[in-house]
């Protein structure tokens, strides 16, 4: 599945072969140990199970799914905070999986992350200025102290904060402001790829819109590429060019944003979209709802065959023992279901 075609309609994107990130057959299994003295592995949690996708320069790929589907682990693998069990992660042509810590270091500047919870992602004992300057120090980007301070001020104002904020501590700021600090810190190393792990889900509605707009502005200003991990489908639709839907460690559907939201093919995607209520009572009254029964099974003991079959309204007998492969049903539209 290396040759996933590029299909996002982003105007400012270069040629299709310039994949910034190429993930091939990525697997991350966490061992479950048992025994006090002689520890042995009794099972594996397949957090990410054979995932492949490509991300080109300037593109935003949304990664959606429910909690425990492996979307965060996938992000952590790309950041090399988690070493994958198998597969390749090619960033600008280099396979990150083969590199050791020292070789990885210069590349880490290029891949940064924005975390979900702005309350726990910032060191409470450091001032905002120091928090934003830290990555520049670590990567010796701006060795001169005065220049570094200037750069911090610049980043602060770019992210909608006043330079005086550099003297404050995280607890003096609101959730939205803290998330802006998190974004400023991520930008301090001038990255090419930003992994945004649920960057707005901890924020209030009116603040969410501010942060989404900021992320959009910065993407255009610095030609950033985002892997946008989220569970809120309407936010993902607003921000992303392409979307991949994950369920129990696997991508079940991937398409351009417009295709996925207008013609979802996988029954899970359809149910997810139907579960999101629209803020309009009149629309809601006339809407058809697919309410899934059952819950997400444990990734420790996933169902046989298609992992979605116990909850699937369209399941047939063969789904129980045949795992469907991701196949292209229309140019750029990939679905892992035998019934579509």
């Amino acid at each position: 599945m290396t040759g996933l075609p590029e299909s996002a309609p982003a105007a400012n994107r270069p040629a299709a072969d310039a994949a910034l990130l190429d993930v091939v057959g990525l697997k991350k299994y966490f061992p479950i140990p048992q025994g006090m003295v002689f520890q042995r592995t009794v099972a594996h949690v397949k957090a990410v199970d054979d995932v492949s996708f490509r991300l080109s320069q300037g593109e935003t790929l949304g990664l959606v799914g429910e909690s425990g589907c492996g979307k965060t682990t996938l992000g952590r693998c790309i950041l090399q905070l988690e070493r994958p069990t198998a597969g390749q992660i090619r960033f600008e042509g280099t396979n990150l999986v083969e590199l050791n810590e020292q070789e990885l270091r210069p590349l880490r500047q290029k891949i940064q992350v924005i975390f979900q919870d702005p309350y726990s992602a910032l060191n409470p004992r450091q001032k905002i200025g120091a928090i934003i300057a830290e990555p520049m120090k670590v990567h010796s980007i701006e060795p001169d102290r005065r220049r570094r301070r200037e750069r911090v001020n610049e980043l602060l104002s770019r992210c909608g904060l006043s330079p005086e904020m550099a003297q404050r501590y995280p607890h003096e700021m609101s959730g939205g402001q803290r998330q802006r600090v998190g974004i400023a810190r991520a930008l301090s190393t001038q990255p090419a790829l930003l992994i945004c792990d649920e960057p707005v889900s901890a924020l209030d509605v009116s603040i969410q819109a501010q942060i989404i707009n900021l992320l959009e502005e910065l993407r255009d200003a610095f030609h950033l590429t985002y892997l946008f991990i989220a569970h809120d489908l309407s936010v993902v639709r607003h921000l992303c060019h392409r979307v991949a839907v994950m369920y129990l460690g696997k991508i079940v559907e991937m398409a351009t944003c417009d295709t996925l939201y207008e013609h979802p093919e996988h029954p899970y995607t359809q149910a997810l979209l139907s579960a999101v209520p629209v803020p309009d009572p009149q629309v809601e009254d006339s809407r058809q709802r697919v309410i899934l029964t059952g819950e997400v099974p444990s990734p420790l003991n996933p169902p046989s065959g298609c992992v979605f079959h116990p909850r699937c309204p369209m399941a047939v007998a063969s789904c129980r023992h045949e795992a469907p492969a991701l196949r292209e049903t229309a140019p750029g539209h990939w679905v892992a279901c035998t019934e579509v």
Partner: protein
Amino acid sequence: MAKLLEVQDLRTQFHTPSGTVHAVDGMSYDVEKGETVAIVGESGCGKSVSALSILRLLPVPSGRIVSGAIRFLGQDLLALGNEDMRAVRGRQIAMVFQEPMTSLNPVLTIGLQLTETMVQHLAISRAESAKRAVAYLQMVGIPEPEQRLKQYPHHLSGGMRQRVMIAMALCCEPTLIIADEPTTALDVTIQAQILELMKGLSQRLGVALILITHNLGVVARYADRVNVMYAGKIIEQGKARDVYRHPRHPYTLGLLRSVPRLDQPRRRQLESIPGQPPDLTRLPNGCAFVPRCGFKVERCALEVPDLVHAANGHGSACWEQERLDKPRGTG
């Protein structure tokens, strides 16, 4: 006919070292039998405190209901003694909390926690209450209810625990359930299941529901009427349809415009509400929304607007509400 619940000019304050927090600052609304009323607002706007005030579950001594009346079936709950209040709590008014893990006792079995309220309120035997518990677990869609009674909360998933909470709320056949962000901790598909279940049971059993949430979509799908809160006050109330079609307060309008919607074409940029919610210890003299409002006039910073109702019961606390009715561009 008496309303099921009438809240009149409720004021709840917290005394903290950094000053008095006006968490609920003059709030009035009512709930009719069997209907679903939503209280919507962002974190810190006082929506949860208003619910805890109804059940008189505020943390003492810092939290205090300063004034107002809460009439349940004509009876003022604030005038009741502690013993009488206990007879109402859980029996006539039940509550479902946001985090099912922290609101269930981790060291007691599901069965014990379910039967406890029934033994307390309905004066029935353990055996009888266990039988009922099984029936209620079945009603909320929990498979193998007999086995569940012997299990502990950690054996269950988040969605299942919330179902148990709903069963607990229902088991004494209350006439009102207050659900405080009942699905915020759950995944979208599970959220849909739980809300569908709650709405269905409320209709079938004629139980009224106060749904406290920050999710405008959930309100649109499930609520008959809605109260929008900002900085301790209800700034807009009315039938859900009216409020969503013709918002008459700039805050409601801003909220509705700031969420991306799946049923509309993608917009270039989201309209956000600038600034942040105010500090509830230092409320401004006039309308609390002034610093963030695009419709403000001089009067707004000086005088607090009252909730003014139109003929259809649609109320707004805004001096400039007439101007909001004008045709708009996007939204």
